[in-house]
């Protein structure tokens, strides 16, 4: 099995593992941020360029470094490879540039966006971006489009990660969803506003890293950090029926798939579970869900006793 060293930490991984997967095996401290890669979607990744790393040594056999930063999500490890992520100043700098590009046309309408609080672009810019943008021109805007009864597309917020396109390609049938136009005019579209009508189409909401694809049954009902996530399941003939219910008081405001540490759903769920089962009686409750991410949803909330690390304590506003 190939051995790879990432930011000074060595791990042995199965043949065919990507640098990103290997880094995730090592741990979140060395794992590069990934905005377009999605483990469960084939051919995803390679687009956003946030996961770039430096390959300081190609392999044991051919130790030459790679000439350019590589997307870790689409680059396989080789035996003896040495990878630098956060330890490379060039990469930290280059990633800052990528984040700046991703934000250049982003509306930054977080205060009115349903995704706020669980948005990967928020996390990314907080962790890897600059406080100020140098972009001073009009931002690209699009009209909101309803794609089917349950999903709204707000292209203005899209970062063109192609994840929803892969969902449409790979887990729904009768694909009517893709990309039209090119360059900074490129947009996700169902072409002549065709409705996506299909058992699994709701998953585009879960894979969307930003608030471009949102759940119309949840729109503007609450901020995610005011809702309480609970694991639940039901007997479903279409999908696994394993979901997270998001409660406010006694009311189920929305249903989503269960997301892992990297923000990726464990299993795709069907539209019936997602949009039509909004009563507690529809579900067998398993218990409160631990939100693993460093997200505001988990701040001071139900899942665990809060132990504030010393370095955070210093930064807390008293």
């Amino acid at each position, binding site marked *: 099995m190939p051995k790879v060293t990432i930011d000074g930490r060595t791990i042995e991984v199965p043949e065919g593992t990507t640098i990103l997967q290997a880094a995730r095996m090592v741990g979140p401290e060395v794992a590069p941020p990934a905005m377009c890669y999605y483990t469960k979607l084939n*051919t995803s*990744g*390679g*687009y*956003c*360029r*946030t996961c*770039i790393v430096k390959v300081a040594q190609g392999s044991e056999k051919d130790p030459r470094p790679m*000439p*350019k*930063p590589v*997307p870790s999500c*689409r680059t396989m490890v080789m035996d003896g490879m040495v990878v630098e992520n956060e330890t490379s100043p060039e990469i930290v700098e*280059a990633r800052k*540039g*990528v984040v*700046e*590009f*991703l934000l*250049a*046309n982003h509306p930054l309408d977080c205060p009115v966006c349903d995704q706020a609080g669980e948005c990967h672009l928020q996390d990314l810019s907080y962790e890897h971006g600059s406080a100020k943008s*140098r*972009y001073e*021109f009009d931002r690209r805007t699009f009209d909101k489009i309803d794609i089917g009864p349950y999903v709204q597309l707000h292209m203005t917020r899209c*970062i*063109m990660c*192609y994840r929803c396109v892969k969902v449409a390609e790979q887990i729904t049938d009768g694909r009517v969803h*893709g*990309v039209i*136009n*090119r*360059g*900074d*005019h*490129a947009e996700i579209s169902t072409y002549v506003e065709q409705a996506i009508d299909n058992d699994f189409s709701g998953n585009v909401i879960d894979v969307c890293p930003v608030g471009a694809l949102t759940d119309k049954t949840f729109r503007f009902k609450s901020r995610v950090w005011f809702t309480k996530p609970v694991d639940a399941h039901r007997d479903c003939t279409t999908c696994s029926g394993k979901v997270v219910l998001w409660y406010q008081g006694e009311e189920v405001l929305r249903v989503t798939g269960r997301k892992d540490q990297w923000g990726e759903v464990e299993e795709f769920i069907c539209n019936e579970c997602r949009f039509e089962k909004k009563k507690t009686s529809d579900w067998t409750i398993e218990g409160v869900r631990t939100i693993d991410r460093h997200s505001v949803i988990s701040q001071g909330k139900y899942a665990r006793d809060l132990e504030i690390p010393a370095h955070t304590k210093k930064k807390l506003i008293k």
Partner: protein
Amino acid sequence: MGKKLLLEHDNVPGIQGYDVYRQMGGYASVEKALKTMNPNAVVEEVKKSGLRGRGGAGFPTGMKWSFLAKPDGVPRHLVCNADESEPGTFKDRYLMSRIPHLLVEGMITSSFALGANTSYIYIRGEYYYIVRILEKAIAEAYAHGWLGKNILGTGYNLDLYVQVGGGAYICGEETALLESLEGKRGNPRIKPPFPAVKGLWERPTVVNNVETIAAVVPIVNNGGDAYAAIGVGKSTGTKLISASGHLNKPGVYEIELGLPVEEFIYSEEYCGGIRNGRELKAVVAGGSSVPILPKHLILNTAAGEPRLMSYESLADGGFVTGTMMGSGGFIAMDDTTSIVKNLYTFTRFYHHESCGQCSPCREGTAWMEKVLHKILDGHGTLADVDLLWDLQKNIEGKTICPLGEAAAWPVAAAIRHFRTEFEEFVKNPTRIKDVKHYYRLNNLPEPVM
């Protein structure tokens, strides 16, 4: 006179038609290859010739051919890249419209070498009139038994198709071209896998430029060694140069690689000097994406050696004082040219042509265009020049395909060599708004517009 291999019969009346082309020795390479050589021997000749890809990257063709995977029972394909969309490059158009049979012949000989039985010429949509010329040539080749089943009774079969693109520069990038050829949106693929392993319909595929394929004809006819004897060092053979801009005689020239740049610009055999007797200011030597060089660096290298039209000499000095051969689009600019305006035009092109898949190129090309527009409008600041520099740096090397670099390099080079001109633009905003300001600013006579 320099030796001509591709355009030798360019001026023979009727060379566009089959009969004259055949009388001039056309299709000899097919006869020679199919009847007296095996496919590997043809690949060997191409290797020996030292031929390098004429599409821009200059990768050795023989080596590319030998990388082609040959799994049992899987068809292989040869695809000719006739998408020619780089600003400043128009040599393939010239060749295809004047001597179409040379490309058809090259396709047959090369397909035989690669063991391909179905080959394609992917041509940009704007070249619709050449499509007709090529289709006529292909029909003639079928009629005379050079294409189809059992060619020359050797048992070798080949079908050749022309596929018309929709007119996108990005479809010249080889993997975007393959996507488009498959009927999909022309987005570049993420490599690996490379086309040599998984190309058209996931089958092993070679993509070559028109000129590269045409050059196979003289290589097979005269042998790889004879081809390698022309040129200098690793720049062997002849190259078509598309010369444009402020030259007395712009046009397509076939040169022997190694010709001094100075001779190419000023001699009567080639471009005949700068129009109206003006001073040369700068040259973009290999199509819009390669770094621009000021006069003193294009005529001589930084070390003071005469610069030659060869892959190595043009690249001498790296990107600091050198440039690239690229696709051979040679754009000369005289002293009335505004580098800032020229850069804006290039940048607008790349913005328009970015496919939008990867964030740095999608956002960066648009952003650079806006900044340049602002500077041209007289609203620029010195910080904008630094911003442009940062933007190109943040794009370079971080994209899926080389279009990102193609957009970044011209910006980097223009600022590197002509920074004062950018500063002049931002420091004199009121004068900038006057169209003729530039000439007055530099005490130049205003050009007739």
